[in-house]
């Protein structure tokens, strides 16, 4: 079958990066399977329980970069109890024992311990890049091991992790010989930072392109850091609590002006708004701006800043910007591709004047032709607005709309939002990810089934009327990979109608729905290649056998390695 020697084929495969393409290649014939697997450097595992480390290493012995995802997405919203699973240790342990030449590890929603980090730091001589997103279970002691032992470390990227900060000296643990850092993000650390150690580290890292500081780095330290790293492309500002005196402000502004490569700005975790003007000189260069943690900046200050950011492609902001602010974004940011508007008031029932509405969304859709990804928290929506948005922006790939009040109908007509969301799905032929909210009936699901051809991920909450809703989705969306549903009236009939469908999906989550223990048991019987997990935090009822009992949380996923052994007592795997 092969007309070329293996090395030539391997060379051709080298230029193929996408793991999906690689997976396809490996199915062509035995020879290609073998060449592909021995040359595969990067592996992506979307569900760490779908496969085990031994089989991974067996198939891809030359692995350099591994991405692992653990807990289901709804764990982000506290729907998955602690200790559910997603432990990285067995993976690191197996990779270490097999002497895999690991260089990069990217983890999302996994439990990482200090021991794991220590083992990681000692086991892989060429380790270069550690990216942890929404992980937990470790402390700054673990970071100290990484700093101390990874001699060729280039990237340490900590995104939104819950890290126990022992306020130690982990930054000091980078040896003086460490000069290879290109990315350092510790914005999520809550404790004090050894500023002197940080400054020395930055000063000896000429290739540092991305630096994201935590709260504890004040203004004058920021000035010094920027002065020794004018090559920065991506900066996360820490805190600038008090208003600076004029001299400090001038120094800061001078340092910022020298950072002509700066393209991305974030942080502003504690900010006095009068410090923002120091950044005005570089705004015209920015392509990414994340002010979503800067709760203290009022809308008008935000607007002044954004008006200067004409090249912005990505904007993450709080709803304190208001509809007026979004109108400014629409007229200024013609290159905008991704927008996220987060709610600023999460705790109270205050009069929510600053929140955004459908008006802001329509303005953005009209003004930003390149927009393809949106996450929008708002207090109200209308079908008319969504229909207009669909007409203005048929290029959406990701569309997530969260109306803060569950089940809220169109606020002008009191109807369901079926037509509005239906219009989005129909117009956006390339839509891959959708999250919906507000009042929705089975009809909306019918639209999804009809038009959601490319849809891969769907998040449903408080929606639908009958099992038909879920069935429309399962039958119609051929590319569905991750389906997550909460508080919707879908039950056993929907769950069991097409068991084979779950072979084509990564996972299904259903919580507070109508599925019963009996239904789940029947599913597990008919699908031995699925792990059907029932999560039941109610201690009293754990081993009840009443098949009519409704299941509180169901999480099922395809796997080739059977039932996992590390589940806590409140998880029952059928």
């Amino acid at each position, binding site marked *: 079958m092969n007309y070329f020697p293996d090395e030539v084929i391997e060379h051709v495969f080298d230029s193929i990066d996408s793991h999906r393409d690689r997976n396809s290649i490996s199915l062509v014939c035995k020879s290609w399977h073998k060449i592909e697997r021995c040359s595969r450097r990067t592996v992506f595992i979307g569900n760490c329980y779908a496969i085990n480390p031994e089989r991974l290493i067996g198939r891809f012995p030359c692995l350099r970069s591994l991405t692992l995802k653990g807990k289901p997405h*709804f764990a*982000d*919203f*506290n*729907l998955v109890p602690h200790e559910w699973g997603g432990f990285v240790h067995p993976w690191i342990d197996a990779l270490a024992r097999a002497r895999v030449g690991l260089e990069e590890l990217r983890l999302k929603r996994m439990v990482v311990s200090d021991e794991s980090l220590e083992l990681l730091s000692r086991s892989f001589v060429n380790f270069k890049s550690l990216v942890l997103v*929404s992980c937990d279970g470790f402390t700054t002691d673990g970071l100290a091991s990484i700093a101390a032992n990874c001699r060729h470390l280039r990237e340490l990227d900590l995104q*939104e*992790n*819950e890290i126990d900060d022992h*306020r130690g000296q982990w930054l000091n643990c980078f040896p003086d010989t460490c000069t290879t850092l290109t990315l350092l993000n510790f914005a*999520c650390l809550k*404790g*004090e930072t050894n500023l002197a150690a940080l400054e020395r580290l930055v000063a000896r890292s000429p290739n540092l392109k991305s630096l994201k500081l935590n*709260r*504890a780095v004040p203004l004058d330290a920021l000035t010094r850091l920027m002065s020794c790293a004018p090559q920065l492309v991506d900066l996360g500002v820490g805190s600038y*609590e*008090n208003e600076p005196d004029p001299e400090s402000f001038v120094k800061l502004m001078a340092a910022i002006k020298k950072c002509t490569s700066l393209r991305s700005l974030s942080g502003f*975790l*504690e900010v006095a708004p009068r410090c923002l003007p120091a950044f005005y000189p570089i705004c015209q260069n920015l392509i990414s701006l994340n002010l*979503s*943690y800067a*709760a*203290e900046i009022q809308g008008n200050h935000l607007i002044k800043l954004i008006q200067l950011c004409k090249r912005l492609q990505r904007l993450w902001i709080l709803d*304190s910007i208001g509809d007026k602010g979004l109108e400014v974004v629409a007229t200024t940011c013609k290159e905008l591709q991704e927008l996220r508007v*987060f*709610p*600023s*008031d*999460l*705790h*109270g*029932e205050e009069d929510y004047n600053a929140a955004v509405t459908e008006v802001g969304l329509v303005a953005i859709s009209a003004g930003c032709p390149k927009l393809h990804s949106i996450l929008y*928290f708002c207090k109200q929506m209308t079908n008319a607005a969504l229909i207009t948005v669909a007409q203005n922006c048929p290029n959406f790939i990701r569309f997530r709309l*969260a109306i*803060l*009040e*569950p*089940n*809220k*109908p169109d606020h002008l*007509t*009191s*109807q*369901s939002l*079926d037509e509005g969301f239906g219009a989005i799905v129909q117009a956006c032929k390339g839509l891959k990810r959708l*999250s919906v909210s507000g*009042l929705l*009936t089975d009809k909306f699901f019918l639209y999804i089934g009809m038009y959601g051809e490319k849809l891969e991920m769907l*998040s449903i*909450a*408080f929606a639908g*009327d009958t099992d038909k809703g879920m069935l429309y989705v399962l039958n119609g969306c051929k590319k569905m990979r991750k389906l997550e549903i*909460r*508080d*919707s*009236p879908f039950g056993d009939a929907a769950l069991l109608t097409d068991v084979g469908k779950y072979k084509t999906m990564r996972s299904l989550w259903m919580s*507070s729905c109508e599925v019963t223990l009996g239904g789940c048991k029947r599913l597990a019987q008919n699908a031995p290649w699925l792990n059907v997990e029932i999560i039941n935090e109610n201690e009293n009822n754990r081993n009840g056998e009443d098949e009519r009992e409704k299941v509180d949380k169901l999480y099922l996923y395809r796997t080739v390695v059977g039932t996992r052994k590390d589940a806590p007592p409140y998880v029952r795997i059928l």
Partner: protein
Amino acid sequence: MDEFVNLKATELRLGLPGTDNVCEETERVSCCNKRALPDCDTENENESSSKKKTETSPPRKAQIVGWPPVRSYRKNNIQTKKNECDHEGQGIYVKVSMDGAPYLRKIDLSCYKGYSELLKALEVMFKFSVGEYFESEGYKGSEFVPTYEDKDGDWMLIGDVPWE
């Protein structure tokens, strides 16, 4: 009166589609909400006016677990707006010093509604933790203790006297 019974079913309406379904939707909405909002158990499901819909979904967003769908990291880390502190000159500013810190800070007491808020703010400002307050023993669990100097020049433990 029989002839009126079926009239509704045969009635031609020019209303927007779905407007007549409001009643059924309300009941189903109640069913869904029952799970999400346990407080709704006692509500009367037999009401079918559309007004009920807005009453059924009260703005109790904070009570539903995991709603709105904001990452818990973000929920825990967003600084709450301190609108009251925007107006300088109206506040009650006091100097705060911490042993070992190179310079003093000033805070506006009128921004806080009680000792716990004040202590939390101090913790953030000075990056330390204050431990737990016990009436009998003062603050336990930390080497730092919050004190203030009263008009007699004595050093007093913060928290003994009522906030007002």
